[in-house]
C-alpha cells in the first residue's frame, strides 16, 4: 500500500518531480530551453481561464491567433464572461466591478472607481466627450450588465466602458432633453437590451402625459424607436420629476412615481412591455450603478 498520508507524499513527490515541470516565463519563440507545459483542452482554456480575465487582457489576447479572436468576440463567450463576473462573490474582489461617478445630474466628467484594483478614480472618455470640457456634459440614463446608456451633446449612446465601444442611437421624435424619464435594461425573452424613453406632452387638464418609446439594441431590423403603450400615469406640470431614471430589477424597469400616486412604484416588464405597480418600500429602493464588465 502506498502513502497513507497525503501530506507526506506531497513533500516526497516535490523533490522528485518539481524540476521537470517548469513554466517558461521569458525568452523568444526560438528559445529551445523551454520545457513544455501540459496541454489544456480548448474548452478548459475558454470556459475556465479566459472567462476569468478582465476585458482589457482579453482585447490583447485577440492577437494570439484567429480562433481566439473570433472566440473572444463571440456573444456566447460574452455571456459566459458576464455570468462569471456577476457571480464572483468575494467581497474583496472588485476586478469585475466598477463604480461610475459623475457630479450631479449632468457633468462634464465621468470617473471610474474600484475597477481592476485601481485605488484611484480614473477619468473616462465617454462617447461624444468634449475634450475641452465644453458642451452640455453627460447624463447617465441607466446601466445594465456593464453597458451604459448615456446622453451627451443631445445624442443618446449605448456604451461599454470596458471595451470602449459605443453605438449612437437614432434620434427620438423630440430632442433628448425632452425625455422626461428613461430606463435601460435587459429583455431575457429575446436576449437583448432595451432603452425606454418617455416623451412628455402637456395636457391642460392632467398636466404631463407620457408617450413611451423603446429602442432594442441588437434585434431591431430598422434602427429606430418604436412606440409602445402610453405610461399609465401623468404628472402635475409644476411638480419636479425631471431626470427620473428607471431601476432595472427582475426583468422590469421601475420608476418611483410615489409622490404622485401615494406610494406607488410603476414598473414596465421589458419582455411583455406591460405596466404594473409595486407597493413602494422606498428604503429598499435605491439607485445604484455598479457595473459588471
Amino acid at each position, binding site marked *: *500500500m502506498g502513502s*497513507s498520508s497525503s501530506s507526506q*507524499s506531497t513533500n516526497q513527490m516535490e523533490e522528485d518531480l518539481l524540476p521537470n515541470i*517548469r513554466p517558461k516565463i521569458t525568452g523568444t519563440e526560438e528559445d529551445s530551453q523551454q*520545457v*513544455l*507545459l*501540459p496541454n489544456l483542452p480548448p474548452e478548459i482554456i475558454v470556459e475556465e481561464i479566459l472567462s476569468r480575465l478582465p476585458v482589457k487582457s482579453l482585447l*490583447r489576447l*485577440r492577437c494570439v491567433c484567429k480562433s481566439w479572436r473570433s472566440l473572444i468576440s463571440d456573444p456566447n463567450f460574452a455571456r459566459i464572461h458576464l455570468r462569471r463576473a456577476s457571480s464572483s462573490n468575494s467581497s474583496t474582489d472588485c476586478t469585475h466591478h466598477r463604480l461610475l461617478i459623475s457630479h450631479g445630474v449632468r457633468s462634464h466628467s465621468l470617473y471610474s472607481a474600484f475597477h481592476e484594483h485601481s485605488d484611484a478614480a480614473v477619468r473616462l472618455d465617454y462617447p461624444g466627450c468634449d475634450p475641452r470640457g465644453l458642451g452640455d456634459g453627460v447624463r447617465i440614463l441607466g446601466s445594465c450588465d456593464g453597458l451604459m446608456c448615456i446622453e451627451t451633446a443631445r445624442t443618446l449612446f449605448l456604451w461599454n466602458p470596458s471595451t470602449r465601444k459605443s453605438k449612437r442611437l437614432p434620434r427620438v421624435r423630440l430632442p433628448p432633453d425632452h425625455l422626461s424619464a428613461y430606463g435601460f435594461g435587459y429583455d431575457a425573452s429575446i436576449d437583448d437590451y432595451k432603452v425606454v424613453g418617455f416623451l412628455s406632452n402637456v395636457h391642460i387638464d392632467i398636466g404631463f402625459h407620457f408617450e413611451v418609446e423603446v429602442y432594442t439594441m441588437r434585434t431591431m431590423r430598422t434602427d429606430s424607436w418604436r412606440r409602445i403603450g402610453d405610461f399609465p400615469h401623468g404628472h402635475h406640470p409644476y411638480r419636479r420629476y425631471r431626470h427620473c431614471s428607471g431601476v432595472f430589477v427582475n426583468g422590469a424597469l421601475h420608476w418611483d412615481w410615489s409622490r404622485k400616486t401615494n406610494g406607488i412604484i410603476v414598473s414596465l416588464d421589458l419582455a411583455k412591455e406591460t405596466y404594473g405597480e409595486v407597493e413602494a418600500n422606498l428604503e429598499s429602493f435605491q439607485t445604484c450603478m455598479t457595473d459588471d464588465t
Partner: protein
Amino acid sequence: MASSIENNNEKLTLKSSDGEEFLVEKHVALQSTLLQNMLDSDCSSADVIPLPKIDARTLALVLGYCKKHADASSSKQGELNSFDSEFLKDMDMGALFNLVLAANFMEIKGLLDIAAQKIADTIKDKPHQEVREIFHVENDYTPEEEAAVREENRWAFEGFP
C-alpha cells in the same frame, strides 16, 4: 448521506498514472463528484481506483486540498480561504495546469475554481506573445493581420510589446 456517516472510517485506494497508490479516507474522497458517483453506484471501495490522467505529484496535491476541505467545518470559511491562497502561493504554471486538469477530471469544483483563477491572475498582465507560448497556440496571423487586430484596440496595448 446516512451511509457516508456510517462508513466514515472506510478508506479507498486511488492509483496515479505513474503507479503510486494513495489510501484515502472516504469522506475526503467525497470532495470529488467523480469519486462520489463511483461510490454511489456499484464500485466497491475495496477496489483500487485508477486515475490514469493524474500523476502522483498532482494527486498528492489534490488530496491535500480535499482533506483540508473535508475536515474543515463550514463555519471556517475564512480559514479555508487562507489555506487556499497558501496552497497555490508558490505553485508554478505546470503544477497549476495539472491541478486544473485533475480537478476538472475528478470534478472538484472548488479546486478547479481557485487553480483556474490563479492561472488567469498570472496571465492577465502578460503580453499576448507569452500567453501564446504558455497555451501552445500557433500564431496563424500574418504580421500585417496581427498588427491590424492590435490596432482595433490600441489602448489596451499601452505599455506592452
